[in-house]
Each structure stands twice: as C-alpha cells, then as structure tokens.
C-alpha cells in the first residue's frame, strides 16, 4: 500500500514539472504555430541563470525568479531576432512548414554547446529551499517531502495564474488570432509581433521553473548533458501532444498522465523502460485519440 501511495506521489510531482514544460510548448505553439524543440535547451540555460543567482546570492527564492526572468528574456530574444526573421523568410518554398521546427532543433544544439562552453561539462549543484527528506508516517517514510509539496503548490499557483490570464484577459484570444491569421489579427488592432513575443516569454519563464524544479527534485545537480533535461525535452513535448497541443489544461493533464505512467512503470514493471514508456504512451494516445486527450473543441476554453 505504502509503495502504491509513494509511486503515486512521485508520479504527481514529476508530472507537475512535465506539465510546466508542456505548457511552455503549448504557449509557443499557440502564438507561432511552431513546435519548439529548443524549449528544453532554454530551460537548461535558464537553470544556469538560476544557478549563478544561487552562487552569488545564495537564495533559491531569488534564484527562481532570476531563472524565470532569464528564461523569458532568452525566449523573447530568440523570438525577436531569430524566429520572426525565419518565419518571414521561410513563408514560401518547399520546406516552409517544417523549416522553423527544424531550426528549433538546431537551436537546441547551439544552446547546449553554448552552456557547455560557458559552464563546462561537469555537474553543478542547486540546493532546494526546503528539505527533500520525505515525511514519515509511523515507521514508513513517504516519497513526499517539503520540497515536493513546495513544487506542487508552486506549479498549481503558476497554472492557476496562467489560466486566469488566458480566460479573464483578451491575451488568450489575441494569441489565437495572431497564430491563426496574422492579417486579421492586425486588422483587428492586435499587435501580432508583441503578442508572439509575449507568448514566447511566458513559455520561457514556465520552462525555467520546470528546469529549476527538475534539478532540485532530482539529485540537485545538473549539466548540459544531464538526463534530467533530456527527460524534460521528451516529456514536455509528449505531454503537450497528449493534451492536444492547444490547451493549458490539456498540457497539465498530459504532464500528470505521463508522470504517473512513468512512475508506475518504473516501480511495477521495469526501470529499463524509463525512456520507452513516454513514447509508448504517445503512440497509444495518437492511435486512440489523435486530437489529444483534450480535443480542440474544449481546448479553446482554456
């Protein structure tokens, strides 16, 4: 029983981090219709910003917003000087549809190489703000610690803030309009370029939190080659697709499903399936519900 509960708790915490990553993928998709494979690279870079803040200021609570701001700035920079130009240049031609997506794969490589050359390939550490030692119930230790509680609460707060932003403000509608038809959006007075930059920035900040939490939730150390970031890359993307790619709620559900399934597969089947399980889930979802768990109809609401 305790094993089941622990598996559940591990899955939910990991899943909430994947959700943030999936939200980042969804935000970029919504604003520019690009699948951003560089998102994990951007999260990595942001986590290094957070690491630098930790080194100099020694506070996780400063490092987290620093990482978020850094992530938002990097994302805005990429959108402003790179994607905007690329989307314009590749609007016509045989590979117009895939060129920006392939470009984000290239960006991922560039960012990884860049972080390696700046910070070196060896592991660096970020210490979480609270203990990651599990709560105990009687003789049993739960796989749920103050740190995991903190992660869960922070993710919930961020998701609530984001969905409030999308439902209560016109930003959600503006993002959709900009992606669907820039011309109509502009004629409606929407500053499409600014809206796109905003979408990327929110994604960058969201990915930064995912990177920071993924690191402290793991063993606290990371490097450009960490398996943690490969996992973020794969899980964020797959969770977003499972969730229908167009919906914040879908991204959250996708992340949680993925986190739980990975956790249960590891615990009850085999840890060697670690990297295969997410892809199997992706294939199953694509076969059964190609529109994602949350279809486009529901997606527009959230």
């Amino acid at each position, binding site marked *: 029983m305790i094993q089941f509960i622990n598996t559940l708790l591990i899955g939910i915490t990991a899943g909430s981090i994947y959700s943030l990553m999936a939200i980042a993928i969804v935000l970029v998709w919504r604003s520019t219709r690009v699948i951003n494979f560089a998102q994990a690279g951007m999260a990595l870079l942001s986590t290094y910003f957070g690491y630098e803040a930790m080194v100099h200021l020694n506070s996780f609570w400063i490092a987290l917003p620093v990482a978020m701001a850094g992530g938002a700035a990097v994302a805005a920079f990429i959108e402003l000087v790179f994607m905007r130009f690329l989307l314009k240049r590749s609007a016509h031609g045989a590979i117009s549809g895939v060129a920006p997506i392939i470009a984000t794969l290239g960006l991922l490589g560039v960012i990884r190489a860049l972080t390696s050359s700046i910070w070196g390939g060896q592991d660096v550490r970020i210490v979480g703000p609270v203990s990651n030692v599990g709560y105990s119930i009687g003789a049993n230790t739960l796989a749920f610690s103050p740190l995991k509680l903190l992660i869960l609460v922070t993710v919930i707060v961020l998701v609530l*803030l984001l969905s*409030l*932003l999308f439902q*209560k*403000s*016109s*930003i959600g*509608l*503006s993002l*959709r*309009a900009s992606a*669907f*038809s820039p*011309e*109509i*959006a*502009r*004629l*409606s*007075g*929407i*500053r*499409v370029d600014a809206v796109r930059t905003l979408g990327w920035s929110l994604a960058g900040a969201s990915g930064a939190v995912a990177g920071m939490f993924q690191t402290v939730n793991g063993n606290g150390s990371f490097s450009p080659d960490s398996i943690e970031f490969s996992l973020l890359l794969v899980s964020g993307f797959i969770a977003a697709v499972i969730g229908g790619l167009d919906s914040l709620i879908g991204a959250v559900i996708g992340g949680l499903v993925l986190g739980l399934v990975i956790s249960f597969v590891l615990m009850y089947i085999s840890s060697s399936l670690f990297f295969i399980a997410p892809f199997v889930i992706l294939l199953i979802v694509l076969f059964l519900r190609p529109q994602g768990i949350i279809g*486009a*109809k529901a997606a*527009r609401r959230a």
Partner: protein
Amino acid sequence: MSTNSAALRVEGVSISFGGLRALNDVYLEIGKNEVVGLIGPNGAGKTTLFNALCGLVTPDSGSFYLDGHKHAFPRTDALVDLGIARTLQGVGLFADLTVLENVMIGAQHLAQTGLISAALARNTKDENRIRERARIALERVYAGGLADRRADTLSYPDTKRVAIARALVSEPKILMLDEPAGGLGAQDIEWLNVLIRNLSAQMSVLLVEHHMDVIMSVCSKLYVLNFGEVIASGDSETVRRDPAVIAAYLGTGNS
C-alpha cells in the same frame, strides 16, 4: 475634391512590385457618411489600393490624409485606433471559436488590461464590455441569433455577416469592405444593400465590388481603376456613362 473635411483622402499613390507598376499616381477621397465604390477590371489594382490603405503593402510614394490631417500610411495594427476597419475577401473566421468570440477579436484593442491586473482578475469589466459590443455588432448585421454558434457551422452568407460584424465592433469611422457581395445570392445581396445604406448614417464606407447591382444601389461616388490608374471618378451615373469606363469594361468582357 478639395474639401478638408474628407474622412479619408489619398493622393499620388504609386506602388511597384518588381518592375511592374501596380498603382500609378492614384487618388481617392471618401467624404463623411459617403459610400464610395472602387471598381475596375480584374488586375486593375483595386485590392492593391485597399492593401495600401491598410498597411498591408507600403506605397512607394503618396500622401494620406485623415480628417484633413496629413498622416503617414498607417501600420495595419494601428488602423482600428484610427477609426478604420476592413473586411477581407476570404472571410477568415476562426472555425473553432463561437461567432461571438470571432466578433470579439475585432475589439481586442479596447482591452486595456495589463498582465498584472489580468492575473488578479481585475479585468472582467473589459471582457464584459467587449462581449456586449460584440453582441451589438452582431445585431447590426441581423445576426444576433448566431452568437453562440461555432463559426464552422455557419452558412457562407452568414460568415459574411459575421465578418462585417467583426469589422463593426471597433466602431470605425471608415469601413472598408472587400467584395462583400462575392458569393452571395440575390436575397442576401438585398440584405447587404440595406445594411450598407444604414451603416452610412454612422460611418463612411469604401467598397471594392464586382456586383454592379450593389455598386449602383449603394454608392454615391465611384472610382474606376484600370491598369493601376484612376480612369474615371465622380457620381455613379456620370461614371457609368463615361466612355473610358465603358471601354475598359467592354475590353475585359465584364459588364
């Protein structure tokens, strides 16, 4: 054509694409509450002129006056703030949004809410105000009953109404309609004529249209473009009888 009070006036508009001259020294004036038709054979430059007025293409030369004041040719996303709204030939509704939401997009510039107040949910007033205006705009095109339908369930004539509502929701002073009658049957054209005449009580209307029924029924003034130049302009009856216009139309087999 010297009035300072013209709602919109352009002069000397020239545009070349590569070596091809799409517009040559074109002028156009739209008075307040006037319905002006822009006609001409295919490829005459009507859409290019429309696009220039909307900032979708940048003219090589020309001047732009709004209410008698000289103004740079506007950026597309600044149009609604200048009181200009436009429909596109392709209707361009968002299939998976409701009709009301589609119309609300046309009023996004009214949303003043910043990120922070949105996060604090302080802007429901904004949202409600825009929603209310979108409903009113739908009523004006006799489509109030469609508000909650998904856009992709509409008939083609209904999508045209909704597209006009989306332009109206910004409460423009100048409404630009790009082939509003295109693809409509006789009954819908009747409805469109009535609508345009009603709208002209509140705004100026500029329309590009092939349907001469519509043009003759609603326009008080016509501009005729051919090969990128204005070959005739003036009140509808005079222009209709202009030999240059007849030649241009006979030449292409249009009527």
